[in-house]
């Protein structure tokens, strides 16, 4: 049974709940597009006007040396980018743009 004890916990929990609720309600209109939909977008389509190669270099190379697009198949890149979207806190648009670049390579 979950019991929240102490004002510290309650305050943090309230802040977290408020944030998550706001995101759930406010941002739920932009659902993730399918791989097909993502593929239909040009590789140069961008998040904040950035190309796929630029986002790939900025986001992947921040933590590790990025593997070239030829390292994996298109399907594998889809799975990897999905995984890295969570791990590296990418937006959906950033993930789609990076995936399109990697798959085009």
């Amino acid at each position, binding site marked *: 049974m979950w019991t929240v004890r102490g004002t510290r916990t309650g305050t*943090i929990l309230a802040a977290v709940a408020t944030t998550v609720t706001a*995101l759930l309600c406010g941002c739920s209109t*932009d659902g993730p597009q399918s791989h097909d939909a993502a593929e239909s977008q040009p590789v140069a389509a961008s998040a904040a006007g950035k190309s796929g190669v630029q986002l790939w270099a*900025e986001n992947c190379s921040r933590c590790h040396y990025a593997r070239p697009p030829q390292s994996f198949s298109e399907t594998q890149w889809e799975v990897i980018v999905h995984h890295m979207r969570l791990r590296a806190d990418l937006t959906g648009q950033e993930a789609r743009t990076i995936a399109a670049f990697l798959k085009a390579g």
Partner: protein
Amino acid sequence: MNRSVCWTVLLLVALCASARADAPAPTTQDYVSREEYERLKRDQESLRNELNALRRDRADTGAQVSPASQPTAEGPLDDLQRQLDELRDQVHRGLPGTEHFLLAGDASIGFASQRKNGSTFNATFSPLFLWEPTDRLLFEAAFDVSGTTDPNANSSTDVNLTIADVSYLMNDYLAVGGGVFIVPFGQYHNHFDPPWINKLPDDPLVFSDGGLAPNSQTGIFGRGAIPIGPTKLTYDAYVVNAPNLITRDPAAAGSLAFPAFTNQNGNFAIGGRLGFLPFPELEIGYSIEEGRVSPSNFADVHALLQAADAHYVKDVPFLSGRIDLRAEWVWSNVDRAIYDRRGTLGFGPLALTNYRDGGYLQASYRPLMVNNRILRNLEFVARYDRLRSPLRAPGGNHEQRWTIGVDYWLTPSAVLKAAYEFDQKKSGPDQNAFLVQLGLGL
């Protein structure tokens, strides 16, 4: 066509006529009588009919033979082709890269020579399983496999589950999930931990076993990122089984044990991280986790963990290379409690507020823009890290290390590392160490 028929008929007539000519001559007359003419005419007509019948038969036979014979000859071929196609599809489906399932992970092989501890080889293997059944859904599972040998020479294999979660993409800015996951407390465990990403052979003290920061915990989470103009805000929030307060171990009482796969005390912790990227090269973050951690038969004890982190990566043409600066600091406060109240465990009664802190600063440089290939693959690393805990606490110490290292990058995900560590402890002998490691990303 008609012309050839005529010629054929004429030829036959000629042949017949010659046959007739070769035949014994009529004994009575040398000319053809009306009766003979009529007979020849009938014979010609009869031959013409036979020839036409023969042609029709041939035509009919040709038309009938093909469809009749094909089912017997090509039927098995069609069946064989179908089976071949099915087999090809099955083989194709089994080929790497054609399914939304991926086996990744990392591995390392190392050598450590540490003062007061001797020298040893070591190895780890950490497979990571990823399965994406739909565009929104992702299953992840990972575990660390390693071997240890205790002071009594007993060897054992350690298998530690680090990830077993499922996540769902709600929209472009939010993902939710649950299970056993690497909590985003600071950046190290979430980003830099794998041996092909970590630029030194070992972990900073604060993120190593017995450190202050949680690694994997069990619960639910929400995470995502929100672009704000040219900047970006990242956020993570989670509720997990709270870490367990160690109360009876004379060497670790007052410390927290991670992870808690099952909740035995009804204690939960909540936490999260806010990150901000004012520009792509820099990320700064603040993390917090709070919860009740005491066992059920113990006083009410809460723990508050906080962390601040910063990470800067930049290609600098002036230096012909890339610089990477990382800094993280963790504060861990466990409320005051009395351990071994009756003195039966041999270290109490001990009243202790376990306030600990530690972190690391790391700088690395790789001359990525020089022409020499060998030089381009080298990376030079320096790190300072420390961990302070109350000296009167069980296992308490003040330890700090200076580490210098050099890496050689074989590929973007394979690196050979060598480092020397200068160690200083307030309590106990300093343990300088020479470390070598091959880190591989799979």
